[in-house]
């Protein structure tokens, strides 16, 4: 083995010079094509979002000008005022924020508790239970849609935010919640065992170890979970659609759909695309702010689990 390694090492030494000379032209050409493709795809990725912002600043009736007008003339910032004034947008924003924050809080607190149990403690059936936990990630959530509706209806929780919050206080017991347990557990497994073993010898309880040692050290994983969870709940549409129906608890997602339907239903020329895009931008802003301020946690979370958030 070592001999082969030596030979390949020598061979590499020998070919380095020739390779760079030969490959130089190819590499630059390849790089150019690569850069061009990347640039093109990046533009395509961003165009619809830019178009959204641009349209939200346009005067009513000027949304469909051809050729497309990227910089609105005139720029109407008032669309945002109108969007808030002509509807309860502020209330819907508040509803969505409350649901997303409370669900996320529950997710992070209880998932980390369960993750600690799976990462550090030994008990009968742990392996089997962990496999069950992971397999709930593979289950399609729709199978339980009808029964959970029945459950929450029996509890009298329909048309309250409770069905969207309470299941997330059961450490990954909600559908898709196992993702967060998995993420935090993977992170905790990487932490050195000496830390909690030392604390154990000093007489600390497991809960104390969890709360005082593991939780502070797992901050990156907790942050990643919190971000995934917040964005999931902020964007969620199916669950609010099924569990909420009054205007009082309407979320931004429900409102946008309601707005689209009433506007498009109002006749072709009457659709106020500019206001609709303004409301959409309002919905996207918190997500974008979080994304740009915590991007590294996203990337890390995806890399750690190999799965994206649910």
């Amino acid at each position, binding site marked *: 083995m070592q001999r082969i390694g030596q030979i*390949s090492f020598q061979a590499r030494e020998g070919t380095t010079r020739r390779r760079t000379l030969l490959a130089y032209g190819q590499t630059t050409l390849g790089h150019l094509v690569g850069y061009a493709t990347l640039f093109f795809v990046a533009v395509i990725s961003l165009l619809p979002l830019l178009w959204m912002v641009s349209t939200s600043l346009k005067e009513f009736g000027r949304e469909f000008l051809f050729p497309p007008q990227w910089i609105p003339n005139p720029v109407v910032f008032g669309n945002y005022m109108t969007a808030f004034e002509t509807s309860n947008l502020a209330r819907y924003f508040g509803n969505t924020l409350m649901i997303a924050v409370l669900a996320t809080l529950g997710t992070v607190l209880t998932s980390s508790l369960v993750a600690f149990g799976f990462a550090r403690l030994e008990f009968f059936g742990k392996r089997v239970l962990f496999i069950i936990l992971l397999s709930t990630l593979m289950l399609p959530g729709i199978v339980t*849609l009808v029964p*959970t509706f029945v*459950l929450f209806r029996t509890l009298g929780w329909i048309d309250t935010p409770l069905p969207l919050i309470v299941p997330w206080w059961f450490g990954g017991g909600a559908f898709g919640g196992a993702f967060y347990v998995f993420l935090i557990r993977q992170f905790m497994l990487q932490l050195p065992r000496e830390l909690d073993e030392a604390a154990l010898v000093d007489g600390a309880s497991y809960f104390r170890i969890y709360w005082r040692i593991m939780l502070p050290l797992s901050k990156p994983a907790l942050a990643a979970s919190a971000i995934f969870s917040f964005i999931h709940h902020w964007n969620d549409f199916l669950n609010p659609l099924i569990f909420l129906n009054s205007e009082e608890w309407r979320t931004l997602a429900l409102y946008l759909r309601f707005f689209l339907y009433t506007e498009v239903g109002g006749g072709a020329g009457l659709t106020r695309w500019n206001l609709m895009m303004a409301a959409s931008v309002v919905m996207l802003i918190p997500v974008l702010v979080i994304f740009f301020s915590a991007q590294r946690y996203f990337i890390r979370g995806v890399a750690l689990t190999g*799965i*994206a958030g649910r």
Partner: protein
Amino acid sequence: MALADQPELPRRRRRVLLPGWTWRETQGFLFIMPWLIGFIVFIAGPFFFSLYVSLTEWSFIGDIKWLGLDHYVRLLSADDPRFVQAVYNTTYYVAFHVPGVLLISFVIAGLLNQKVRGIAIYRTCFYLPSITTGVATAVLWFWVLQPNGLLNNFLDIFLEPLGVSGPNWLGSTSWAMPGLIIMSFWTVGTTMIIFLAGFQGIPQHLYEAAEIDGAGWWAKVRNVTIPMMTPQIFLTSVIGVIGSFQVFTAALIITDGGPADATLFILLLLYQMGFRAFNMGYASAIAWVLFLIILFLTIVQFLSARRWVYYEGERA
């Protein structure tokens, strides 16, 4: 992991949940208790209850009437033309969406891995659409797919010289589905990030060895990159199939299944049956058929994985 290696710890008073359990084991159970309760109440319980409901006729308000397998017979004997249509549409969508997303994100991640300058900026650009999924982007794409919307404006650059104009995406039974599929490609970002992480984990010496053997660009991709990436390809395709069989939000908002059921997905039919027509039994049966389809495809993928997925360290 080995508990036996641990030093003898100061013993507390032994309290037990079940006979024969140490306090340590009991505590382990207490830590995972929230999940266990949640799992039983919100997942396992509803899971079996829905199986029961699927064997009944129930509109939610009246009594439950036992039907046996009637719903399943109706679904599986293709007696309901809308269900057949929904299965066809969903398969159509999955067949283009999953391979498309894998291919596009593989190429982009591969390009990003070439030590590109400004990699962080590009990564952000590609990932951005993935986190903005949901209603806001569905509304946006409703607008982009209008006959005089952004997509057709873009296509006109190529089509106008030919004297053709872009299709009326959402108004045509043959173009509505391609429109939704194109929209779905917009969110390749998450898969791309998973692939990028995979690319960065491929040991450089494999490429060097291949180069010594005289491998060109394509040979390296074919014989090093793709085999080393099979775990990521496998995982994303399993998750992609599970997720895309449950496509819902975009279709409900943009087309609501139309025109003429051309974009009626299984989940959309389930929603209409259960929560608009209040036919809970039938909706649950649809859910179970969908579940079995997904389960079958997942098992097939896992079985086939033995043939083509390479885990390093497994076969040394």
